[in-house]
């Protein structure tokens, strides 16, 4: 297993963080958070990958006859997707409400809570 997928996962995470830190639009910021989260999918799937492995469905292959990829990380990634969908939906709803109440989605103009 090459180290490339792990580096890619780390890189995606950092790209998402960069976007979050420099974002000028809250919708874009929530998108960047999803990018950060996508990096965890890449990481999890990379961890579970087996060379020449197949899907871990044992209805048509004999257990032990050939390598399968790790089903645990797939379950984790799936759970992660569900968690991420909830978080993103809630945050986008909060952005809509922010836009209604403040009339802006630019974090630079949201300065009511300081000090």
């Amino acid at each position, binding site marked *: 297993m090459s180290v490339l997928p792990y580096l890619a996962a780390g890189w995606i995470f950092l790209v998402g963080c960069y976007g979050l830190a420099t974002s000028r639009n809250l919708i874009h910021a*929530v998108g960047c*958070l999803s990018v950060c989260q996508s990096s965890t999918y890449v*990481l999890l799937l990379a961890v579970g990958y087996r060379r020449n492995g197949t899907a871990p469905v044992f209805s048509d292959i004999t257990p032990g006859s050939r390598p399968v990829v790790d089903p645990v990380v797939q379950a*984790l990634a799936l759970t992660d997707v569900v968690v991420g969908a909830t*978080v993103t939906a809630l945050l986008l709803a909060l952005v809509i409400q*922010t836009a209604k*109440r403040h009339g802006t989605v630019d974090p630079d103009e*949201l300065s009511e809570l300081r000090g």
Partner: protein
Amino acid sequence: MTAAQLLPLIVATPLLGAALLVAAGRRLPRFAAEVLGFVFSTGAAVWAVTLLVLSPSAGSRAVEWMGGWRPRDGVSVGIVLVGDRVGVGLAALTSVLVVAALAYSWRYFDEPPHQHAGSFPALILLFQAGMCGFVLTGDLFNAFVFFELMGVVAYALTGYRVEEARAVQGALTFGLINSLGGYTTLFGIGLLYARTGELGLAQIGGRLDTHPNDGRPDVLVLAAFVLVLTGLLVKAAAVPFHFWLPDAHAVAPTPVCILLSGVMVELGVYGTARVYWTAFAGPGGIPGPDVHRALLTLGVLTALVGAVMCWQQRHLKRLLAFSSVSHTGLFLIGISVLSPEGLGGTILYVLAHAGAKAALFACAGILLDRFSSVDEHELHGRARQLPLVGVLFAAGGLALAGLPPFGTGLGKAVSEEAAGWWPTTVFVAASALTGGAVLRASARIFLGWGPHPSGNLETTSGKDEEPETRGPLRRIPDTMLAVPVALMAGALAVGVVPELWPAVGQAADAFTDHAAYTAAVLGTAETTPPPATPAPHWTGVRVTLGLLSSALALALAWTAVRRPATDEPARWAAPLHRLQSGHVGDYVAFTLAGIALLTALLW
């Protein structure tokens, strides 16, 4: 029914209640919805307390493998709930605070969302389930899921009053920063799974122990530890991960503040301690001196920054929020000792702090609903006709300062003694500043002492806040007064009920026993327990230290009240104020800087 079978019930009861309220909330009258909320949250509290009483000895752990997937030869694919005394105790504390918050909010939001009376109690019950699940799980990935569950509900509860501009802004900041922290934790969990092939805390610890290192952890284990810790420290609001907390606590409805500040933030500290002792404390984990250095540095930084910012606030809820930041720092110093003494002190401190801080938030909520303001300067002398609230508020200030015999004083003194002499000065300074700020505010608001302040301020002041009830209250409901009284009595009880102390001491002994936890969960041979440490108790030195910090707090408050209240924050604290910019991008940058700092400290 065995004790272990109670464990899933503690999590499932509030979940069931939340599901019922979501399904039937539209058709239920408000009264029925709130009673349902009570019944289910109290149910979970009863299970937790029963389990706490049932456990035969302090060292025993209730272990329940969900669905019966028990480990075979030390290998497992199952999901485990582990209830040791600290975990179950925190679940009980959470449930009791949830009941208190629900009692406080009885007839509190006079206008529940249109035709859905069940939404607030349902969210609170979900919050309770998330927090109880987080403290009871013995599985790192499940801990992440419960972490996100309590996070998502907390963002929703913070922005509960969606009509308010500040509330949604604070909730959004809270959501973005905490979710980012959650994903770093997941990244770390992925790395740990890659190394060990396990997700359970005990199993990870067991696997890491089979590859002992020679005093230097390998890079992957170190990275995993840093990443897992980041999310937990974001939740705990340790500096420099703390920026979301004052914004969220200042805008959240008061019953939610009671839960956020009383127990959710402390769960971050608990998670840090739990992950370290179960997974990383063995020979293959992270060396103790490195962890000590990292937690001590962050703790001292957090305690001082929080205390200074707390002293500078005039918005009462922000003042209390920064005081929570400061106390988190003290908790981190307490666990950084990595010994049962430090941990036992911290447990007592957390218990009493939850009561005192929740009572203070409840008092601030009463002021908000009575006068539509939480601005210390604007409220000057206006609350003279509320003597009971005033006494409670001042007592809360003294409790935060560590006055004996409050439980905060005992917990603080025991942690101080474990931490050594120079962290003790940090303890005294931080508790004097945070307690002094509360005392200053109560002297001004409830007694009208000092010159009448005037003028305006650039930072968040707390003027013109919307009351959370329909219009300002003319009479304070009995429930809103009874809750802070009961909570403050609880904070006092922690310091004066000697039967509690040996239980806490034994719980700390069991919590710090890495090998015994692994053995209990995986069902392998029992190990010999380390010698028991003496239970936390009052001594002359400890009483003196508590009196010293209380006297300092009183002196600080007295000096501040005598002088005219200035509108600008002190010049020497201006850089700290500028950091709290309200810009979410800045906070993300600080989170990344914090990860770098944590790595450097552990390297």
